């Protein structure tokens, strides 16, 4: 937000005049617009050295791809030289590892023809932003929408990070407020990115943007110096899985199943019903609002922060079971191998949906620095 733009210094919800640089309306609590949300393209990406399908030896990403199924080499004809599994396109399977404590894997799964999940990660020494968007497969081009959304949101979160243009600073309570604000800005930017992508696609195809527009879920988590803030629309999730203590799902699904659970239907029954995956909030041209709901936690000890799509949690919804699952694969303590193992596991369960698993290893060392 630019300081001299008086129109943005007024709450869009109740009309209350906002204090300079305020991120929330003092009257009604509505988050106020931000610079990053209105012009995400100005954000620099110094903190986001992403790696796609890296070869550890050469850094070469395309010359010698390895097989996702058996670890063999993908031959020039596009199939594994050992097991014959098709090599995946970079959109179908990509991995990011912006820091040694933050990594994620985004995979097409088995049953779906395209990978409509998307993921965008950024990390520094004490800061990380993990964004996952799950394209709604009933709408065409949701793979384009979800990728645009996740990247736009990540870029906004980076701008609020320690090296960004509008860093969130101060005591924990102030930072919770700041990051909640940032999360809403990020989800709005993501929503705009989906609309932008939808309009561009409609123009290219000569169709109307309101006909079956692409849409996606949104989930993001920020780790900032001992604080974790989650934001979401839809049913992609954030889990906090401490090494000791209570595992918890930070996000609350915006879904029909969740509404049933809130109404008293047992979780297992609600989540397996035919309508379980009908989501009640999403990003897209037809979305009623694009403000993320947020939750924050201050971890007492080390643990894993997991941001994932339903392609993973469908097979392991409960936070305690998810904790056990992650612990099982996290023997090396490396988020990259652990995320890859989680994706392989979900594929082994049937891979009925696209699968994204992004992990941050939140340790006392990382939380106590700075």
């Amino acid at each position, binding site marked *: 937000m630019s300081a001299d733009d008086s129109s943005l210094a007024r709450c869009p919800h109740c009309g209350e005049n906002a204090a300079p640089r305020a991120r929330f309306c003092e009257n009604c609590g509505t988050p106020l617009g931000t610079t990053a949300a209105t012009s995400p393209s100005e954000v620099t990406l110094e903190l986001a050295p992403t790696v796609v399908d890296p070869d550890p030896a050469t850094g070469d990403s395309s010359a010698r791809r390895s097989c996702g199924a*058996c670890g063999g080499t993908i031959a020039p*004809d596009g*199939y*594994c030289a*050992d*097991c*014959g*599994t*098709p090599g995946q396109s970079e959109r179908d399977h990509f991995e990011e590892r912006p820091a040694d404590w933050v990594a994620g894997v985004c995979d097409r799964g*088995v*049953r*779906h023809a395209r990978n409509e999940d998307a993921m965008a990660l950024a990390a520094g020494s004490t800061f990380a932003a993990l964004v996952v968007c799950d394209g709604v497969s009933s709408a065409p081009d949701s793979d384009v929408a979800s990728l645009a959304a996740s990247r736009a949101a990540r870029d906004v979160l980076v701008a609020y990070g320690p090296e960004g243009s509008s860093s969130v600073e101060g005591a924990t309570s102030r930072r919770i407020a700041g990051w909640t604000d940032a999360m809403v800005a990020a989800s709005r930017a993501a929503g705009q990115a989906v609309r932008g992508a939808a309009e561009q696609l409609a123009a290219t195809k000569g169709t109307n943007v309101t006909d079956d527009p692409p849409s996606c879920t949104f989930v993001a988590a920020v780790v900032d110096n001992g604080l974790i803030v989650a934001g979401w629309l839809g049913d992609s999730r954030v889990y906090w899985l401490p090494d000791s203590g209570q595992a918890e799902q930070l996000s609350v699904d915006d879904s029909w199943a969740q509404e049933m659970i809130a109404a008293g239907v047992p979780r297992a029954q609600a989540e397996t019903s035919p309508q379980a995956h009908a989501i009640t909030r999403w990003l897209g041209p037809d979305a009623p609002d694009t403000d993320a709901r947020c939750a924050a936690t201050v971890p007492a000890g080390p643990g894993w922060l997991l941001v994932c799509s339903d392609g993973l949690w469908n097979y392991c919804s409960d936070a305690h079971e998810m904790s056990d699952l992650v612990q099982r694969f996290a023997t090396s303590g490396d988020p990259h191998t652990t995320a890859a193992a989680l994706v392989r596991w979900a594929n082994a369960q*049937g*891979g009925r949906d696209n699968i994204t698993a992004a992990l941050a290893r939140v340790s006392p060392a990382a939380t106590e620095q700075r």
Partner: protein
Amino acid sequence: MAEFSAEVFQNEFLSDGATDVHAVVSVTCTGAGSTADAGAQPGAAGVAEIVAVDTSGSMQGRNMDAAKHAAAVAVDQIPDGTLFAIIGGSHVATRIFPYPNARVPMVAMEPGARTEAKRAISTMAAGGGTAISSWLRLADDLFATVPVAQKHLILLTDGKNESEPTMHLDRMIADVTGHFQCDARGVGDRWVVEELRKISTALLGTVDLIARPEDIAEDFAALVRKSMARGVASVDLRVWAPQGSEVLFVKQVAPEVDDLTGRRTQVNALTSAYPTGAWADETREYHVAVRVPAKPVGSEQLAARVQVAVGDEVTASGLVKAKWSDDSTLTARISPEVAHYTGQAELASAIQEGLAAKASGDEATATVKLGRAVQLAAETGNDEATSRLRKIVEVENEEEGTVRLKRNTAKLDEMALDTASTKTTRVRRA
């Protein structure tokens, strides 16, 4: 420079739990050139040709005269520079030319050699029994002395291999397999199709019947021309199949049915090679079947890489795929190519089994098998097989394959049906 291309025909969709992947791979060679291009220097030419003519007592008369004439015609067709020899075969094998006392086992063709070879051929006389293993042994010995890539034998007989136990011939065939190629021809109706087929199949050649002695010369000339047109010496079909899979069979299905499965050699842990001999400008088609472990619906899997290897160099490759689907409109389709050649291969065995049953007096089996053959020939549009079958059986209902065996059929008609049984028609492509 020869170029190979491979095209795959298949329905890659498998139903849930299915494991067997079938494909027809069409391999085409262009620009093969001729063997004359392989080496211009006499003696260093890329090809060696031997003609082995039956000189057993049964050949006496018209057959011997026709065979001598045919050998002379073959000598005319062999181009200058090609290494050659003529063998006369009875219960023993004799080198007719170069003369038995010559110091070189094979000579390069040139006008003088051609004249002298014809003179040698004219001195051949019929007498003795028939032991074909000795002819193969001599051919192998002669071929072994020349360092050329491509070696071709034309073998002509009119009788049964009666002067030795079958085991001798079988062992000799095994010994010389891979050393040279052999086209075998039978003249008249006293030779045994199965014997010559055994030889020609193992030695990557053809078997055929020459009904009338006067037709031998034309056939020999065609065989020599065909041999000389094969400008690519030694071609392997390679089949890569993924870890945990099993190659069920590899069959040549056009222009003739020839099961290659038993000729497999291992290239590496996942790749096997099947020799296909020398190639001219031509198209051959192969039916490859691979069994892979079933994968979940939605998965894709490469089931085979079918490659053409000249020497150690892979010059063409076709991909056989498997995609599991729960859409039965996709999985229920059978590739027309696979269906056609499956039918043609079954046609070949139905004819052979039917004739064998008929010969052994099992008329019930013969009627069923030949009836099935009539049905398959009609279904796959093999008109040649249909007309040959109609000389042996009375067709009651072509669609249902009901037939009656004809009485007093000509032996030659049965042999013609038998030798031609492996010849396939190409699938009609839209």
